[in-house]
């Protein structure tokens, strides 16, 4: 295994990690503050990708596509919050799981009806195609752009939550929503705004992954499940925890898929390694989650004072 291959796989892991972070940030905020399990978060990611892909095909401009994808999914998130989610905050988790399960069925079928069942491929924008030289390692410019965008989003989340008035309300709302409402804050609008923000981030993740994954109905669920593993490992409600654990999960998953089959070949015969490698690699993050839970049921970075 060469050094450059190792670097590329690490960068790929980082790239998957920041995508997972964009998804998990919204999920963990909504879960931590409104105590709402949003299984349809993956659908918002999918719809964001479709909005962007459709806009990109029409306008041929990646900026317009980005705008449509992010604004479109934020608007959709806002609508979902007002129509369905807001009615379920006071209900138990089972009702929330069921209702958002219904929404997933609806959105997947909606995407299939509008855009067809065949995967939709989005081209990498002209300016970001090709590769870039990073200290002697050549790496896809577009994937590097994803990493940069993801890190900027993480920085933005940090500043928003810790340095602004809205962020202060978000933190206050997560520890005691009733008191925040009693102090005269419009908690309904705050909730809707947080939901829409999470949806916008999911849409951004969908948009960014459009050119490297295929855009198709049901694309949201595998990502959603991985994002759930991320927030369980990170500690529910913690954006900081979601960031670190997204990077950890991204790197573990990518490295496992790349290196585990090679590693197994060292001490197993070729055909067994060929069969067992991918199977074990796909289980790696689940095993990691189980290990974390066995040692720290609250997650690695639990929210304090709750």
């Amino acid at each position, binding site marked *: 295994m060469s050094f450059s291959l190792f670097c590329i796989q690490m960068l790929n892991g980082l790239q998957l990690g920041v995508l997972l972070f964009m998804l998990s940030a919204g999920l963990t905020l909504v879960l931590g503050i409104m105590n709402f*399990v949003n299984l349809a978060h993956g659908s918002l990611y999918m719809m964001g990708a479709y909005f962007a892909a459709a806009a990109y095909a029409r306008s041929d401009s990646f900026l317009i596509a980005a705008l449509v994808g992010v604004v479109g999914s934020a608007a959709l998130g806002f609508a979902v919050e007002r129509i*369905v989610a807001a009615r379920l905050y006071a209900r138990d988790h089972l009702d929330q799981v*069921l209702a958002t399960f*219904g929404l997933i069925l609806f959105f997947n079928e909606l995407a299939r009806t509008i855009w067809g069942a065949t995967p939709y491929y989005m081209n990498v924008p002209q300016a970001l195609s090709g590769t870039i030289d990073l200290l002697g390692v050549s790496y896809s410019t577009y994937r590097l752009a994803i990493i940069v965008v993801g890190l900027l989003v993480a920085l933005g989340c940090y500043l928003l939550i810790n340095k602004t008035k809205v962020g202060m309300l978000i933190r206050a709302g997560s520890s005691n929503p009733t008191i925040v409402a009693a102090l005269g804050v419009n908690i309904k609008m705050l909730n809707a705004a947080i939901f829409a923000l999470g949806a916008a981030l999911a849409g951004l993740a969908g948009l960014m992954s459009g050119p490297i994954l295929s855009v198709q109905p049901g694309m949201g669920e595998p990502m959603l499940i991985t994002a759930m593993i991320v927030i369980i490992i990170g500690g529910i409600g913690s954006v900081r925890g979601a960031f670190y654990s997204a990077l950890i999960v991204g790197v573990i998953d990518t490295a496992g898929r790349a290196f585990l089959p090679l590693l197994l070949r060292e001490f197993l015969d070729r055909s067994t390694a060929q069969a067992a490698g991918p199977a074990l690699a*796909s289980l790696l993050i689940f095993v990691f989650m189980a290990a974390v*839970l066995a040692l720290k049921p609250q997650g690695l970075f639990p929210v304090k004072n709750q």
Partner: protein
Amino acid sequence: MMRWRISAWVAALVVLLLLAVPLYASLAPEPYALTFVSRVLVFALAAISLNLILGYGGMVSFGHALYMGLGAYAVGLLAQHGVTSGWVQLGVTVVVCALVGAVTGAISLRTTGVAFVMITLAFAQMFYYLFVSLKQYGGDDGLSISARSDFGIFTLASPIALYYTALALVLAALFVMKRLVDARFGMVLRGCRINERRMQAMGFPTLRYKLSAYVISSVLCGVAGLLYANLTGYTSPAYMAWTVSGELIVMVVLGGMGTVFGPLVGSLVLLISEEILKALTDRWMMILGPLIVLVVLTARRGVYGYLLDWDGYRERRRLLKDARSAEGRP
């Protein structure tokens, strides 16, 4: 004097109709009806198993399809290697489901609430990916089963034998559930759903009770999977997909969570509505999805739950009337 309640009448009627389905299917003749109702029964068995932990134990498992898949693969993998004895397959199903249930249950039950939902989902997904990556056993495409389970005195190759086996198992499961939830074990489990901390304060080792319920439920669901593989003659990772787990929850809630008979009613109602919607349009999921949301928002007691409520209402009115006439008032 034992008064017949409406819920009991409905339950008796459903069971009678189910007994008569093979007769109707052969006289009409509509063989599809037999296959369809067999599917209802298989899912009812899985929903009954889920109801034990979801409805009585308050554990929202979003990965119960995992055990259906394991049961189905027990048939598929053993048949692939020439073992078609139903008893062996049943034994393997029970042992594997109990083991997987005990291990994943012990880890998942370290958490509660949302985290439990997500972890059960994640474990089911983990096995889903495992079976997808087993290319030598069909991977994503699944595995067709050439020989059905052979139980010596009968074989599940005959649709009628399969149907009555499924029906007998459903009725037996209903009976056992009734006894189980009214027994001490069930009482402790129901107590955990309402207030686990109080049960602990009373000295019950709640984790042990919950884990036992989880394992019992896993094994029963695995048996449903064994039947399902025999019904379709095929097994695939799709049997343990998260959508199947979701459907099982919908069945339990639709029929009436925490009622013994509810899951059977729920699987009947859900699968029949799916058939009707499929006949109406190809895009049936676009109607089913919002319907589920609507049921959650408005009618969460479930069909059988409402029947029980109605019985309770009639009973209260009768008692009130008796009390009034005893006092000599009109």
